[in-house]
């Protein structure tokens, strides 16, 4: 135990100095296995901060390639990565930042037929995706396998996030099902201020490190929402619903579902 090399002691010294983290907390971080679903706007800061923090294993799943339009907010990728796999591009940055971190790359999308097998390999899952079908898929797969996860979503100038641990409220306790396609933002409404991705993803990374070190209070049963236009941050209490379709007493969702994506999402994935 605590067999950190001189290099690691130096690298993680600012964590070790914290009373609440210390050597013991850094060891927990080193033993952690985290899956990041999506290596985009949210995934970029999440992956970079978790790699910097020394998370032992980071799984990165993303079936997309880097597009020039991503670079405005997806800061793990660079101009020379355009056209290459996002998952591989992210892995390369992790290796460069912290060679102690083991990466597992999935050049694929999370679907109903692979989600359980992938999710069950990890201790904590991060929803860093940009569409409702996958958000519900991650929620359901995590509830079914008893895994904690961080939900994150951003749009325009706003972000929202909460953390789920087994027994606390889940995404379907808040929203029973994906919104109808006419309520999903259209392409013209789907702009986002790049730095918002950094704000929200960084909160998700902090929640992950809090989860493993046991520091403070997680955003369980609390939905944190912010509006960067006014810099108002609010925490809304949420509660586990007995009639939740997936975590309730008599769940109606007992297997994973691939919901249809909106036309705009489909277009983006074809690029």
């Amino acid at each position: 135990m605590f067999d950190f090399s001189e290099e690691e002691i130096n690298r993680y010294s600012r964590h070790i100095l914290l009373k609440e983290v210390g050597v013991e907390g850094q060891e927990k971080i080193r033993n952690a296995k985290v899956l990041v679903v999506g290596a985009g706007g949210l995934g970029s800061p999440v992956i970079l901060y978790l790699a910097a923090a020394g998370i032992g294993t980071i799984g990165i799943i993303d079936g997309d390639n880097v597009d020039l339009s991503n670079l405005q907010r997806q800061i793990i990728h660079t101009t020379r990565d355009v056209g290459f796999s996002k998952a591989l591009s992210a892995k390369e940055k992790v290796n460069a930042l912290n060679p102690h971190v083991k990466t597992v790359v999935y050049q694929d999308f999370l679907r109903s037929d692979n989600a359980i097998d992938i999710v069950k390999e990890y201790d904590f899952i991060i929803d860093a995706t940009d569409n409702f079908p996958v958000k519900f898929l991650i929620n359901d797969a995590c509830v079914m396998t008893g895994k904690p996860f961080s939900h994150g979503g951003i749009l325009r100038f706003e972000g929202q996030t909460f953390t789920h641990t087994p027994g606390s409220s889940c995404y379907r306790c808040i929203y029973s099902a994906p919104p109808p396609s006419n309520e999903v933002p259209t392409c013209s409404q789907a702009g986002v201020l790049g730095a918002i991705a950094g704000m929200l993803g960084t909160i998700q990374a902090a929640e992950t490190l809090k989860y493993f070190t046991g520091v403070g209070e997680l955003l369980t049963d609390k939905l944190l929402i912010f509006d960067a236009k006014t810099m108002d941050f609010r925490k809304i209490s949420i509660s586990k619903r007995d009639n939740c379709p997936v975590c309730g007493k008599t769940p109606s969702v007992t297997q994973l579902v691939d919901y249809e994506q909106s036309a705009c999402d489909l277009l983006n994935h074809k690029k």
Partner: protein
Amino acid sequence: MATHTLDITNEHCPMTFVKTKLKLAQIADGDILEVLLTEGEPLNNLPRSAKEQGYNVLEVKHLEGKIHKVVIQK
């Protein structure tokens, strides 16, 4: 109850405290750690930092020249 020694006379802040915390994590509860350090910044900071984080500082003793000994019980 074992006694351990840690020489941080070549370290600077904050690595002095980082190295001390690492050693304290590696020894058993109740064990004694004798930390050798230099006067000035290390001597001014280490006992204070250790107390702030709840460690039991038993003694601070001048050895020779600029070298001092801080005794901490885990």
